[in-house]
């Protein structure tokens, strides 16, 4: 396989994915019909406020939605040419870890407290490689070295509570990547870390990606991180992707009012603090979604139509589209320089 081919091949294709959580009181439509593609070696950002369904999307891709309440009710997830929703639970074990893997949100709790790092790492490696003990050991040491753990030989016998948060996060990364999956999902992997360690970690992920051609789905609520890390971005709101496209396109011409608001809430160096603002109001409950546009109650451009009918998708450029009634040939979103915050909290 040549390098050019790797860069263009689609590795993951998600269409109309719906994942609902059935609680006694209501049906929570955590993921409500999302579609996106991921190419080999590409980084796709998924951005959105907390509670909009990002983690549930990630867990759906691994078919690890919390059971029995959560269920994937519709859609297709085609990974390496096969729809994993058609696979049996036994077949899924060959998919998890080897084809697609995930780095969880909280490194502090992602490692099992009663087993050593070496044990947990060898377990992950053992799933892909049936080998003798000593070659397993050297694989484990290599895996730790790859994520910049100093003196990895000595670290293998440590328990998680003996390590720092940053180190734990890198070990979690090593475990997730130990079977060399083609796709890795990083679910807000740095929210629990301080800023310097965050940057180190993001750089490390990028380095590993450059070496291995890994495709990354990077989940965050921070557009600043998206600008640094991602090639493309999907903006999620209340269980749907409301806008997606190349990072460059979305930053220069954000179309959906929600995307505009999110981008404007990223602190910029030249801006004084009172230019920052957050969006007023709350997203709708996923258990009680409105008929029309889910952003309407918070949107300064909302019309009657917005409340009645869910907006159709509007194509702005190749691969850049957004779900919003206000978009048409005359108005295709606001270039960011002219953008005025739509709500009144700005100074």
């Amino acid at each position: 396989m040549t390098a050019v081919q790797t860069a263009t091949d689609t590795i993951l294709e998600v269409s109309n994915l719906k994942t609902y959580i059935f609680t006694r009181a209501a049906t929570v439509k955590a993921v409500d019909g999302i579609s996106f593609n991921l190419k080999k070696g590409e980084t796709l950002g998924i951005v959105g406020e907390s509670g909009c369904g990002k983690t549930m999307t990630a867990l759906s891709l691994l078919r690890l939605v919390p059971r029995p309440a959560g269920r994937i009710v519709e859609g297709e997830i085609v990974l390496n040419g096969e729809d994993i929703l058609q696979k049996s639970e036994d077949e899924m074990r060959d998919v998890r870890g080897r084809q697609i893997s995930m780095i969880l949100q909280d490194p502090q709790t992602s490692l099992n407290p009663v087993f050593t790092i070496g044990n947990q790492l060898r377990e992950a490696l053992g799933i892909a490689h049936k080998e003798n003990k000593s070659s397993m050991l050297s694989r484990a040491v290599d895996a730790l070295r790859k994520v910049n753990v100093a003196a990895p030989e000595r670290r293998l016998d440590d328990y998680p509570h003996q390590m720092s948060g940053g180190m734990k996060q890198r070990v979690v990364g090593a475990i997730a990547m130990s079977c060399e999956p083609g796709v890795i999902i990083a679910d807000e992997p740095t929210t629990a870390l301080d800023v310097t360690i965050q940057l180190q970690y993001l750089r490390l992920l990028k380095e590993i990606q450059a070496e291995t051609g890994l495709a990354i789905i990077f989940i965050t609520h921070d557009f600043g991180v998206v600008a640094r890390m991602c090639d493309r971005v999907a903006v999620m709101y209340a269980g749907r992707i409301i806008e997606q496209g190349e990072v460059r396109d979305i930053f220069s011409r954000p179309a959906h009012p929600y995307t505009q608001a999110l981008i404007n809430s990223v602190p910029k160096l030249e801006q004084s603090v009172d230019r920052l603002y957050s969006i007023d109001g709350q997203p709708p409950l996923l258990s009680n979604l409105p008929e029309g546009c889910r952003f309407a109650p918070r949107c300064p451009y909302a019309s009657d139509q917005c409340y009645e009918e869910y907006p159709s998708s509007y194509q702005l450029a190749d691969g850049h589209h957004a779900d919003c009634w206000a978009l048409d040939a005359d108005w295709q979103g606001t270039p960011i320089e002219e953008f005025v915050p739509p709500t009144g909290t700005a100074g």
Partner: protein
Amino acid sequence: MQAYILRRVAQGILAIFVICTVTFALARVSGDPLNVLLPEEASEEQIALIKAEWGLDKPIHMQYLQYLGKLFRGDLGEAIAWPNSTATELIVQRLPNTVKLSALALIVSGVIAFPVGVLVAIKKDTPFDYVGKLFAILGQSAPTFAVGLILMWIFAVQLNFFPTSGSGGVEYIILPALALGYYNVAALMRLTRSSMLEVLDTEYVKLARIKGVPEWKVVWKHCFRNALIVPLTYFGLIGAVLITGSVVIETVFAWPGLGHLVIKAILFRDYVVVQAVVLLFATAFVIINIMVDVLYAYIDPRIRYT
């Protein structure tokens, strides 16, 4: 780890010493031993004689030192209600019976409670789980003697599978062991279930599944050991439950163990034997707790290093 064990053993020895002192003090404040040793119409000489014989004429601190000295040599004193027997002899005769009964009850409860607790956790909110819950609630609200009597009525009186009481072959021990273990099964099962549910929901279990670890290994490797930590703390209490339970159950089934002995001793107001058995029960309790703590540290590395 070794330092930790040593520290726990030292604490245990201190605790046992305190227990010796308390049992000694209790025996003195619970009534004048002379009232038990002598008839009411005893003469002054008789009193003096008995006092000298039992060392009661000496000042209290001397009595205490004497008591400790004897204990140190393994001498628990002459039984009052059993002529020509020492408390040590009485205990040595009955101890194996109580140990047998408690050990069997403990094994029964562990073997049933842990797997069933894990199972109902995995099968949460299915009929399986509801039956388990009902069983646990019944088990924890029924008094031990009632469970003993019900088992006796069904399996010994009605079905004639086992003898009603006494001792002899294995057939005698089964009902009392079940009755004694029943309470623990219920409690342990509930604890195992709830801590399994908590552990099943953790991020590290998610990571294990993400790695592609097979589900049975997720449950029995990643969850079980973590989930054991809570029920294990309860094992320290089980010592107490078994001891109080054995007093009741041994009496119900006329099983000749320490519980049976101590009830008799209380009826005969034999403070020497009561004191000796209480001391033994308390010591057993301390030892069980040390063993639990060591096991606890073995299972949870975070305890070892702090």
